[in-house]
Each structure stands twice: as structure tokens, then as C-alpha cells.
């Protein structure tokens, strides 16, 4: 059963964003489910400047590889090294321990509310 916490924003690329300072970004359980077991994560470099909508890394599962987008522009302040070492936490806890990277935000792309994202995924 899909689960979209109300306090988060979402993108059509199945990422979630917590509007804190810095913002925290991860993938939704819809993405985690569709990917299958995540086995490898390539995350952006800390200090890198990124543009909303740009590819900043990749998520590889047993069966496929997907690009990782950033929903906001800004500077990468931190990446989740625990998720890099243990990618399965992305499947186990996508909204918690499985967060991926943090951004000091300078601008945002189009973000969806939980209800809008649920409508988008048809859940």
C-alpha cells in the first residue's frame, strides 16, 4: 500500500522533499517498489551546485538502473553515506533512514502535495 506523508512535497519523478533547511530529498515508496531491491547508489558530490530537474545521480536495483533528479536548485550539503553503504534501507525506509541528499535551496521546480502525488500515481 502506497504511503505518502502529508508533511512532504513530491515530484512526478517519484522523489520526495522535506522543506527544511537544508531540504532533504529521497525517493518515494512507489519508486522503491518499482525499482525492486536497490543495490547501488550514486549520489552527487557534497558542495556541488545543482539545477532543479537535473540528473544528479543514479539508483541501481537488481534489475534496472534509474536516474536520480534533484527537485530543487542549490548546493549539496550532505549525502546519506549510510544509504550508499547499505542501499537496502532505501527499500526498507524510503522516507526515513533511506533519505538520499540534502540541498541548501536557492530555487524549486514544480512540487506536488501528497494528494496531488497520490493522484499522479493513481494510488
Amino acid at each position, binding site marked *: 500500500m502506497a504511503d505518502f506523508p502529508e508533511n512532504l512535497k513530491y515530484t512526478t519523478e517519484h522523489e520526495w522533499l522535506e522543506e527544511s533547511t537544508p531540504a532533504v530529498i529521497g525517493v518515494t515508496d512507489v519508486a522503491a517498489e518499482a525499482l*525492486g*531491491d536497490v*543495490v*547501488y547508489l550514486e549520489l552527487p558530490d557534497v558542495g556541488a551546485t545543482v539545477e532543479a530537474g537535473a540528473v544528479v545521480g*543514479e539508483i*541501481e*536495483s*537488481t*534489475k534496472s*538502473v534509474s536516474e536520480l533528479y534533484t527537485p530543487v536548485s542549490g548546493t549539496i550539503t550532505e549525502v546519506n553515506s549510510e544509504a550508499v553503504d547499505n542501499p537496502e534501507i532505501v527499500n526498507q525506509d524510503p522516507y526515513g533512514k533511506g533519505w538520499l541528499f540534502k540541498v541548501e535551496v536557492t530555487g524549486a521546480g514544480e512540487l506536488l502535495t501528497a494528494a496531488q502525488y497520490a493522484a499522479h500515481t493513481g494510488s
Partner: protein
Amino acid sequence: MTDKTTPLHLEHVGLGASMTPFGGWLMPLRYTSDLAEHRAVREAAGLFDLSHMGNIKVTGPGAAAFLDHALVGYISKVREMGARYSMICAEDGSVLDDLIVYRLAAEEYSVIANAANAELVLGKLQERTAGFDVVLKDVQAGHALIAVQGPRAAEIMRATTGLVEDAEISGGTAFADLKYYACLRMRFEGEPVLVGRTGYTGEDGFEIWVPAEQAVALWRALLAAGAPLGLVPAGLSARDSLRLEAGMPLYGHELDTTTTPFEAGMGRVVRLDKVSDDGTPLPFVGRDALAARKTSPPARVLVGLRGEGRRPARADYEVVRRGTGTEPGTVVGRVTSGAPSPTLGYPIAMAYVTPEVSAEGSELAVDVRGRAEPFVVVPMPFYRRPQN
């Protein structure tokens, strides 16, 4: 075209499987987690629906001679209730499909083909029947094929309610004595089922042909008996990573119509030593091309690759020489299958490479989306089950 569904389709849906189109069929990709299903097969057992596989019955006084002619293997030498891995090749020696052939009686065989090739194989076999006293029949539709694979498979089979031995129909073997690549008939709820000790996972296991009407009951009985022993239903995703670890080729990846069995490292299935009753070499389809290929150096060979980093190689990625840093060097081959190995914990792949870089220990790289990742040539299989 709408994908066909197997007699177990509603079971998969009920178990919450993600379904995927495969070879014209809608099949379970995974039920819960690829990794969990893969590990269950290595550590306990997995239950697979393989009802999409083609099943062609070959009967008649000419059945053995016909299959010697139509396939590359020495099928007339397979004993009754034995099974053999074989291939059907074109005149030019290229592989049309890889097959399992069961000999059910002196004049009766079952040829099991890959789902995507089933129609083609039936057509090719039909073309090759000229001059042979043989009848072909597609019997796939009336059956389901269920596999139980893993170290606890035999225990699960014995614990399954309704699945019993019957010496009158077994074909001469007791279940306890069933050898690898042999089969016997048992009864499930009174109806005969064919049980082969065969598989595609690198583990011990069984494949059971059951009449379609009883497929659901057998699936449920196996699950009920096996669940307490660690059996889980397993999808195509786990099946693919299991066969890759076991170094088994998959048609469309390691084998296709541009490949002969020799390049694929499967030359042993080509029996150029087949002879007619009068002792002369038996002409079979593809023989001349394959005899020539056997003695000529191949342009490329299939190798196993072990990743030294963490990024897996995938099918169709280029194999390159190691350059400087992460810059891919000259192309020397192409990956046919690749995945992170759940059992071994590092990326594994199969690839066709030019012979000069194919030696064990050869240090190569794979161009993983623009970046050269180091891989080294290793012997296959990558994984071999512990022998007791």
C-alpha cells in the same frame, strides 16, 4: 497482441506479484523482493511457475531418429525417463533455441522450448519431419509447469499432501532414487504428473508437469508443505539472477541466431560423433557448418566477468580494455547478461569478447554509462552449490 496467462495467473495476482510480459506471456516478475526470493532458493527453496515454456510431444517409431536429425544432441542415446540439455540449430549452425528433451518411452519424447521460441521450434521441427515416421503435438496448453528449486526441494516434495508415488506408472524409479536430469511419473490427487529432477537455478530441484485443471491445487499444496521449510514463490527476476550465478545461458542473451554452440562454450552439446545404424556419420541439421566451426578459431568467446567495483554491468554494455582512469579503452566485446550477484556480493556478468582477452585473469573493464568499471575474467559458474 495480448499476453497469455498461465493456469496459475490468479494465484500470482492473489500473492501480490508484480506481473511482466515475457515471451508472449504475462508472468510474475517478483512477489516481494528479488533478493529475498533469490536467497530463499539458495538457502531453502523457491516455487516457480514455468507454464510459459513450450512443450512439444514427439511420438512414433521414428521419434529417436528424428530428434537425432533435427537437434544437435545424441537424443537416441537418452535412456527412457532420462533428460538431456540440447539445442536446435539452423543449417548454418546458429542456435534457434536451447531445449530440454525428456525421453518418456522408447518412442515418446517431450521437447521443452523457451516460451518466445516455442512456435518457431514447433515449425522448424515440423519442417524436419520429412521421411520420419513421427507425430508432433503441441501439448503446452493443457499443462502447467511448476518448479521447486533449492536445497530443501526434495524434502518439500515428500511433504506435499496428495503427491504420491505409484510404482505402476513411475517408469521404474522411486522418488528417493531420482537422479539429476532424470524423470518419473507420480500421482497428484490421483492424476499422473511428470516430475523431472531438472532446473535452471544451480540448485537441486524438481520441475513438475501437471494437467492445467490441477495446477492451482498442486501449487497450493507445494506452498503449504514448503512454507514451514522456507519455501517462497519466486519470480522471473530471481530466476534470472540465479541462472546467471550458475553460469547458465539465456536464449536472447548468450544464445541467438548469430551464435553457434561453440562460441557460447556449449560445444559439448553438439554430437558430431552421431552415427547411423550402418556406422556412417549421421547427417543432422547444421552438421556441416558446426563441424567446420569446431575446428576454426572463433571470432569471440563467452566469458564470465567479475566486477572489482560495485557498479554492475548490464546486457549490451561494451567490454573495453582498461584505459587511464575511468576513460573507457578500445572495445573488445559486449555484455550479454549482468547483475549484482546476491549470493556473492559483487557484480557478475557474461560477455562475448575477442579471444585474445578471454583468458582467466584478463583485466578488462565495462563501459557503464560512460565510465570504465574494472572487471576481470573468471571461470564459470560463478556459483556452485555446496555438495553434501
